[in-house]
């Protein structure tokens, strides 16, 4: 896998040319940025809902990687299929997680994860 095409992003070309000049490296950078943002969100936010949103970002960063690698390595649509699966999975996950958050909210009257603790110490 080569990252050598990223240099073409800095050159000002026409839209199509620009589109054509978009390579795997761009997708990977975008995906990494999304992943990092998701990770930061999940690691720093106290709200459970926000953490869920961070997890969604991480999932989608991964799905983007699937599509990009699939396209650039084989030209097939295997990546897109996987992305659909990830989206479905994320929807299911969000459903369950939000239900848990709701249940937590009922019990604790808050969705702040630092306050949701019954352990001593």
């Amino acid at each position, binding site marked *: 896998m080569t990252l050598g095409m990223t240099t073409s992003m800095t050159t000002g070309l026409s839209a199509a040319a620009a589109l054509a000049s978009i390579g795997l490296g761009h997708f990977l950078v975008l995906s990494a940025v999304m992943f990092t943002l998701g*990770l930061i969100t999940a690691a720093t936010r106290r709200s459970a809902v926000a953490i869920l949103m961070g997890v969604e970002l991480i999932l989608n960063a991964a799905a983007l990687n699937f599509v990009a690698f699939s396209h650039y390595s084989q030209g097939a649509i295997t990546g897109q299929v996987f992305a659909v699966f990830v989206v479905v999975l994320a929807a299911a996950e969000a459903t369950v997680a939000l239900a848990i958050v709701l249940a937590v909210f009922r019990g604790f009257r808050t969705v702040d994860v630092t306050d949701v603790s019954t352990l001593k110490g």
Partner: protein
Amino acid sequence: MGSIPYSGGWLTPPGIDAPLLWLLLFPLLGALATAILGSLFARRFAGRVAPALAVAAMLATLVTALVIFFTDVLPVGERERIFRQPLFPLFVVGGIRVSFGLVLDPLSAVMVLLVTGLGSLIHLYAAFYMDDEQGRPRFFAFLNLFVFSMLLLVLADGFVPLFFGWEAVGACSYFLIGFWYRRAAAADAATKAFVVNRVGDAALLVGIAMLLWGLGGIGLVTGAAAGQLGTVWTRTGPLVETGEGLQPSPGRQKVPVGPTLDFHELRDELRLEMMSRAAAPTNPFTGATADAAHDVQFRPATYLLTSKTLGRLPFLFVVCGLLLLGAAGKSAQLPLFAWLPDAMAGPTPVSALIHAATLVTAGVYLLARLSFLFALSPAALTVVAVIGTLTALVGATAALVQNDLKRVLAYSTVSQLGYMFVALGAGAAGAGVFHVVTHGFFKACLFLAAGLVVHAVAATTPGAAERPDLAQDMRQMGGLARALPATRWAYFAACSALAGLPFASGFFSKDLILTSLATCDRLSISTPLLLAVLGVTSFLTSLYAFRSYYLIFFARPPRQTAHAAHHGGHHGPGQQVMTAVVVVLALGAIVVGPALGWPGNWSSSQGESALPRLLRFLSPMFEGDWPRRDTPRTPAMVEWGMQLGGALVAALGWAVARALYRDAEATAPTRRRLAERYAVLERLFATGWQADRAYHLLAVAPARALARGATWLDRAVVDRAVNAVAALGLRLGRLAGFVDRRAVDGVVDGVSAAALAAGRRGARLQDGRINSYVLGIAAGIAALVVLAYFLGS
């Protein structure tokens, strides 16, 4: 080869096999069965099982002995009467092989018959005598074991089995003397007998060891002897000089040479040397190492034994002295005799067995068995004779003044054993054994009769149950002649035998002893002196014997005793059997003497056949003990003189006793006057010449002083040392405690504190915040990725 005169009885013939083990098995199994079955069935059969089993075992032994004697021993030629049954090897030390075997020769045959015969009669008597005693299984088991031990002792073929029997006899006597162990007197008497015997046993053991050592290393006989015999004799058998060196020779002429514990081997070894000395008048010991080619030496056992010295004493004298001390312990001779009178604390049948058949005859038997060895040391023989004479005198004087009937008989045994030792000292072992036989009969009779008397008295004397000595006090008796007629005549017969009245058995044996002494010229002490002392002793013997007779059956008749004796005591079959046993023994006390010892000067025949029958039977045992000269036939004049003198002295004693004690009330003033005049002597005699005080001064007091010294030493030195060690230990402990607290505990505490701190630190990682977990996971994965990047490529 022919140089060894086999037919002359010099050397032991090869033994004939005989089932001798049965003689030991019957009493041994009897003892076991009596102990086990007797206890098991004690309730159901009113305790009759134990006596029945014991008597049956004894009768079986007696029958075995008689069968062996008549079918094996008697038919064989006089000099071939050696029967052997090797049992098992015991151990090997260097070149000495010690095995456990049995041998029956004329000497042990006489002893076996005596032990089994008298033992059976005494067992039979005891079965009824001990009728109402507790602990009969124990009693009869030990009685059987006693006979077993004695048979082992006399059948032993060497010192080692003999010593087993010797010790077992001592142990059994301990148990039986102390049968009434709840009585302090009985327990003390048992302990005393055991301890005094132990002194003798220790001496015997040392004597045996020294004898073994004195026989030196393995010696091969050659030189003068080899030149004479044409053979070389070795420990394993004769080696013959052939063309190809020394080879074991076939044939029966096997004389082992070297240290041995076997009686017959030892005897043959000494005999061989005697012969070679006789064959080569020039000293064969000097020109001995002739056979240089085979590097053999001429080391005759006799030379080894007689040439050594220990300090200034001849070696052989020391050895014989130690063996003598052992024999004196068992046979109650000076200085170890004081235990025997005390041993009366045991039941009467036990006393009879100890005095007549077992235990005390063991010492006489040992010396008779070793007469060939003692013959080499005239000094030792002299000591034996002197000790015997003195013991005879001391015993007789002590017996004269006792009031306890059984003590009279006990001291009488001491005295009679003295006579036997005199015979052994005079080199007339046959006469000594003869006296053992006659004494066995009349002393067993006296004791068993005394048992009947004591039972009769105990049944009628108030308070006798609590004080057993009361029923044995002759002053309590008297006038029993009509109540116990058969016992009285039996007692009289035994007394005449003891006193040596003519035609009773004691007369013959005692006369034979005195005659042997009179004609003995090997002692380094004047024999007339010994004879005079023994003559006085004979008078005293007669006096005390008939004193007891008249005091029991006549004297003043305290009417209630005599009257009650009709009604008291045992009646029924038990009484009859016991009386029958006593009568049989009384008959024996009369008949045995003339039957076995008809004097030579009374018979018309000459030479060998004129010898008393028992002596002729025993002669192969003692023949050749005296290498230098043949024992001359006793001059008839001496024999007649001794017989006449003995009879006169005995009759005189009888007469005096009759005059003094038959009618005690009439002679009371006379006796009182005598008692006052000789009060000092009486006190001396009554205490057995202060033997107990002598023991106390010589042994008990030093032992106590030693114990006290040891206690002081213990307290002053040992305890102090122990305390010092303990104090040191305390200090060390404190130091160790300090170190422990400061150093060891510190380390342990430090480790635990470190663990605690680490735990606290680690707990902070797990703070329960999801955000930090997520961050942790991310950081971990990132770290792994970085690691994989650097390592993976």
